[in-house]
């Protein structure tokens, strides 16, 4: 057990090291320059550009830049090139904005897809199964922003509620009840949109897991004991079908930092996705690299947690 954990941590750290190198190279080897040091940029004089270059270590060889960057990152001193704000502070602010979207979206995903998937599997081939299958594919296939516009038009026309932004402009003075309702309205649509893909994919996956398990011999044994269908489905089959999903809890983690660029752009939501997008536009390397690094860390922690959870929930695995 201990050796498994140790080995896995070492392996993840090595992976992380390579991730940092790859992302650093991608950014720095791509043609073009950050706007502050772009000689074409009319806002800056030649001297200013030179000063920026020294300040950002852009005049140093690549491996030195790499070392400087990660020295700054680990001492928490990295600053954005665009506005000289500390990167971690910026990310944290945006993270707090994205968090509600993430939480509501995740709750929606997991609470909707499980019942749908299980029901489809139990009544497979029936009208419910076939329509939910078709619906799931529909949701997987629809371009996110197109779906967003359909929903916006619908909500705006039907309920006359504005849904762009985090709250309605100028609502600051009204009663807290109104403000809370307003926040919820603004939250609902983007998180629902963010969840649709997840709901569709996850419910399909639940269904196929459940079907797989329902065909197993031990389900037949359970029926032969005289258990009711409910006991067979929800105790014997579901328990086994759920195993892979327990491990998926770990894999939610990277979603924390993801944030959807497209959805946040449509809803003018000042979250992480927007920040990443803006950073890319401005070639604000520290932000891009930090976001990338943090999300890689989360991916690795996520897989680690899911490996551990597997050990806990599956009695067959013993180290």
């Amino acid at each position: 057990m201990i050796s498994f954990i140790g080995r896995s941590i070492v392996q993840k750290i090595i992976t992380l090291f390579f991730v940092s190198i790859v992302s650093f190279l991608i950014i720095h080897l791509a043609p073009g320059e950050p706007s502050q040091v772009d000689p074409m940029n009319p806002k800056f004089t030649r001297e200013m550009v030179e000063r920026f270059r020294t300040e950002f270590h852009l005049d140093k060889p690549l491996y030195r830049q790499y070392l400087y960057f990660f020295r700054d990152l680990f001492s928490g001193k990295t600053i954005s090139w665009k506005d000289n704000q500390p990167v971690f502070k910026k990310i944290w602010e945006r993270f707090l904005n994205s968090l509600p979207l993430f939480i509501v979206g995740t709750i929606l995903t997991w609470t909707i897809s499980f019942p749908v998937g299980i029901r489809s599997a139990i009544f497979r081939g029936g009208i419910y199964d076939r329509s939910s299958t078709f619906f799931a594919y529909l949701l997987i296939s629809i371009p996110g922003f197109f779906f967003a516009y359909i929903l916006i038009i619908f909500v705006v026309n039907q309920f006359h509620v504005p849904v762009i932004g985090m709250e309605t402009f100028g609502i600051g003075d009204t009663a807290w009840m109104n403000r809370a309702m307003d926040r919820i309205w603004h939250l609902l649509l983007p998180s629902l949109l963010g969840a649709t893909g997840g709901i569709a994919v996850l419910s399909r996956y639940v269904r196929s897991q459940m079907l797989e398990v329902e065909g197993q011999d031990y389900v037949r044994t359970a029926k032969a004991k005289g258990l009711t269908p409910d006991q067979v489905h929800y105790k014997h089959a579901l328990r086994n079908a759920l195993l892979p999903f327990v491990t998926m809890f770990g894999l939610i983690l990277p979603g924390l930092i993801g944030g959807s660029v497209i959805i946040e752009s449509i809803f003018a939501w000042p979250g992480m996705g927007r920040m990443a997008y803006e950073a890319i536009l401005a070639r604000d390397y520290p932000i891009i690299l930090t976001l990338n690094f943090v999300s890689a860390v989360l991916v690795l922690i996520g897989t680690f947690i899911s490996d551990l959870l597997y050990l806990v929930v599956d009695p067959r695995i013993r180290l």
Partner: protein
Amino acid sequence: MQNTETDAQDIQLDAPLAPKRTRLEEFWRLFRKNKLAIAGMVFFILFFFLAIAGFGLTRGDNPLLDPAMVRLQDKLRPPLAKPNLERLQANEIPRLGVYIFGTDDLGRDVFARMLQGSWVSLTVGFVAVGIAVLIGIFLGGIAGYYGNRHIRVGQLLAAAFFIVGALLLVGKLIWSGSALLIGGAGCIFISILMKKAAKAKTKSAGTRFWYFNTISIDTVVMRFVDIMLCFPSFFLILTVVALLPASIYNIMIVIGLTSWMGTTRFVRAEFLSLREQDFVAAARALGLSNFRIIFRHMVPNAVAPVLVSATIGIATAILTEAGLSFLGFGVPPPHATWGNILSDGQRFIFDAPWLTFVPGIAILIVVLSFNLFGEGLRDVLNPKLRERN
């Protein structure tokens, strides 16, 4: 062999047995049951021909349907509107005599633009997936077939010298970069010398060190996959596309280069299981070369699941391109793509909803049919599911 009469009888014994079906017939018999997949396939084929037709009808100097013709007199006309014959010049009048899908804010014929876009979407999807599949088969095949071979110290050193040297060269450090490259060449030279020396019975400590096994090829490939999976995929694509000059080829290549991991994983899994099977063992026993075994015997067997994921991959690539277009990083003008028609149209969503709905629904239908077709194929090819329903 027990007695010859029964052997002769055997032939006639088979008479009342089940009709013999070829693999293709069996496949079709199972596939036919899945109505959604059939619908998907029909649309898949329709889209294919539509895209080719679109390519033919919209290219050249004087195409039948001109997607780039600007008619400001006729801007934002709704679908099925007749062109304004008095105000258009003779060469501006659309050949069909009607704007089937209306016109956009520059008076361009949306139908012509959609046709052109279908070709672009198709090529983006196919080329991107083609790249991903080639990389995936190559890396997955290596990992699956040669997986348990180890990289030796000498090879590792040579590779390290070459890679670091090349990087330093790119980083404009000519001297140290060249030195490392020469070091790498030196390693290969030493290896060649060692090979001669290795024929001798006793090996020196140096030789043994040089031949010391480090990590297996499988580990290298799979760790590389892990590394790539650490990047949030859309963010990565967005970053690279935004940093590179805008061009349709860059988009295809970037999507391809960032989506090969899934294919690699299951080509590897497929190869691992194929490697254990009798026909590969037989091929080896016959002394066929590895190359022949891989390409004549194993790749054809692994190709079916690759096709499935390619079908779904094309759908994903089309969606990705649309997403990039929406953010302003898509295929640049003058090419019309469904993604950029849609994102241009969103400004007029209340005045000219067709500019949003026509491309949106087109993308939806095509992606949906690719997904349904792919999933139908997967169900039929998956022997575990075949037993049931």
